[in-house]
């Protein structure tokens, strides 16, 4: 049982404000991912939760108890560092047992817990090695093992996979998700990689410049981003953005005219916009399709064939470049003229300030 509440948490270095009034609830056994571009304050926030960084303002509450002034040793949390931060002079066994040794846990019990963690992480053959004699992936597992052995209230991860190669990263992602399942633990995970966030999180917190942009499940963020920043950050390939003007609105949505004269109608709430307002259309690559009757016209610049997917880069006539994602292998060739259709249920409209107009058709998995 472990819950975490952040109430108006702030951090400043001198006059530089790095974290600005963050409010957040983390439920018991939740896997929460903080994601955002480099330098947005993810690590700082995590380190404040850990107790490694002083909190400049607000309340940090763990299991109902205010923890601002409790030292890291007494918060009952465990952290996995990007650099692994293993103790180089100790064996794997000693690394994993260090916390228990400090807590004066009897040797027999210590050995049992280390053995259990080693079994979960398949580290048994390496228990008597020093970290220097292990590969990056193995070291990472030792760092995780060190956290598991303590049976912490909350696991904290700071970009734990960013020093691994792509294949290993994919494998560790699955392993971490499995671990979350198996340990039934509350986890907070920091990354700048939206794929890690999408694949592992129960709840994603998108940060930018020390502010929360949106909190939600992966699919909520993907299908109903709150603003341009989240829309552009989540999803790969990136969402296509097209500038246009509102030309008509009613209870069922609005229509937008693009510079080329093409008209697109989308079912969104229109309370906050009027005819003539400048807006941005957000169309995911899979919300576009090749359609001889479609409203958008352009020339194919490049085709990426991934086998199961085809990514077609199209320069629209006067409306800008877009990427179209099509299932399966497609024969479209560069320099070809194409027309594109739009799936209205998957399109977004952002007002002049970048805020999304709420969609009238909610994706069924985002309730």
């Amino acid at each position: 049982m472990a819950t975490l509440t952040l109430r108006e948490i702030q951090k400043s270095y001198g006059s530089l404000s790095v974290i600005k009034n963050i409010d957040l609830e983390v439920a018991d056994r939740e896997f929460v991912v903080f994601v955002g571009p480099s330098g947005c304050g993810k690590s700082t926030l995590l380190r404040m939760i850990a107790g490694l960084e002083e909190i400049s303002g607000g309340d940090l509450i763990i299991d109902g108890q205010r923890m601002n002034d409790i030292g890291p040793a007494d918060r009952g949390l465990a952290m996995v560092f990007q650099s692994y931060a293993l103790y180089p002079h100790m064996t794997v066994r000693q690394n994993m047992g260090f916390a228990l040794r400090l807590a004066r846990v009897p040797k027999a019990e210590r050995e049992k817990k280390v053995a259990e963690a080693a079994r979960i992480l398949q580290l048994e053959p390496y228990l008597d090695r020093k970290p220097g004699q292990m590969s990056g992936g193995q070291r990472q597992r030792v760092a995780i093992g060190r956290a598991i052995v303590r049976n912490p209230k909350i696991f904290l991860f700071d970009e734990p996979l960013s020093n691994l190669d792509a294949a290993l990263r994919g494998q560790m992602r699955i392993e971490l998700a499995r671990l979350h399942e198996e340990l039934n633990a509350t986890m907070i995970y920091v990354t700048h990689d939206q794929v890690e966030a999408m694949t592992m999180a129960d709840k994603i917190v998108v940060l930018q410049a020390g502010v929360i942009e949106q909190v939600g499940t992966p699919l909520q963020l993907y299908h109903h981003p709150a603003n341009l920043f989240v829309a552009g950050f989540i999803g790969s390939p990136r969402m296509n953005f097209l500038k246009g003007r509102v030309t008509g609105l009613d209870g069922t949505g609005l229509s937008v005219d693009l510079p080329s004269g093409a008209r697109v109608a989308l079912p969104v709430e229109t309370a906050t916009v009027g005819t003539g307002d400048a807006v941005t259309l957000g169309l995911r690559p899979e919300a576009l399709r090749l359609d001889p009757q479609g409203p958008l016209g352009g020339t194919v610049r490049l085709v990426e064939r991934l086998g199961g997917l085809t990514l077609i880069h199209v320069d629209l006539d006067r409306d800008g470049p877009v990427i179209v994602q099509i299932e399966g292998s497609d024969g479209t060739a560069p320099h070809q003229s194409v027309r594109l259709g739009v799936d209205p249920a998957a399109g977004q409209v952002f007002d002049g300030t970048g805020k999304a107009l709420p969609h009238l058709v909610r994706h069924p998995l985002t309730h």
Partner: protein
Amino acid sequence: MRSSLTAQLLIAVLGWGIALLMFFPIFWMVLTSFKTEGAAIATPPQLIFAPTLESYAEVQSRADYLSFAFNSIAVSVGGTVLALAFAIPGAYAMAFHPSTRTRGTLLWMLSTKMLPPVGVLVPIYLLFRGAGLLDTRIGLILIYGLMNLPIVVWMLFTFFKEMPNDILEAGRMDGAKAWGEVWYLLLPLTLPGVASTGLLSLILCWNEAFWSLNLTSSAAAPLTTFIASFSSPEGLFFAKLSAASTVAVAPILVFGWLSQRQLVRGLTFGAVK
């Protein structure tokens, strides 16, 4: 290829030259200690002579070498332990929990080494007299510890700075308090640096003469005082002085020889890691 070989040769010759130059006074001192007083001051200096141990016998009959040597060991070890005991927590705090004044504190500590010790001799002497510390080993340990503190703090600070902060933070998350971090993580991982700092402090204490000459007379007098007692304003004393000096520096020379590997390893710690 050719030019790099020439450069290597040049460096080797230069290195040997400097080493010989620095070693020569010690060599001459040892040589002189085996001469008679007459031969010691002969011009031109004699390289070939009949060696004699009479200076050593004279030195031992006039003063008890072992008691001086014991004092030297006691005050050197004591002063070094004292300096380390204060410098390790101090350097830890400055390296891992710096404040805006840390830089200034470090510079200020170093600046105290720029003051000639004789400038504070009178106040220190009076303080020692008042506290009953004159001619005591405790008094000398105190002064040696404080004398080396700035250098020891500086060296430890530099070594500690090499240590990745992450590892200490991991220890903190694992439940270590400040002492646990220092004892289980920082010291084991910076041991070569800490050891070479200790060795340097030992050598500096061993060779210190100003304070020992002024603050001790007999009971706590170390070997530097023992040497000085063989220089006299009249008569011949060079051979005896050389003999006394030889027996005084012999232990630290042997010690330095044995620990040179450790010293070099410590002083190049950052580069190798």
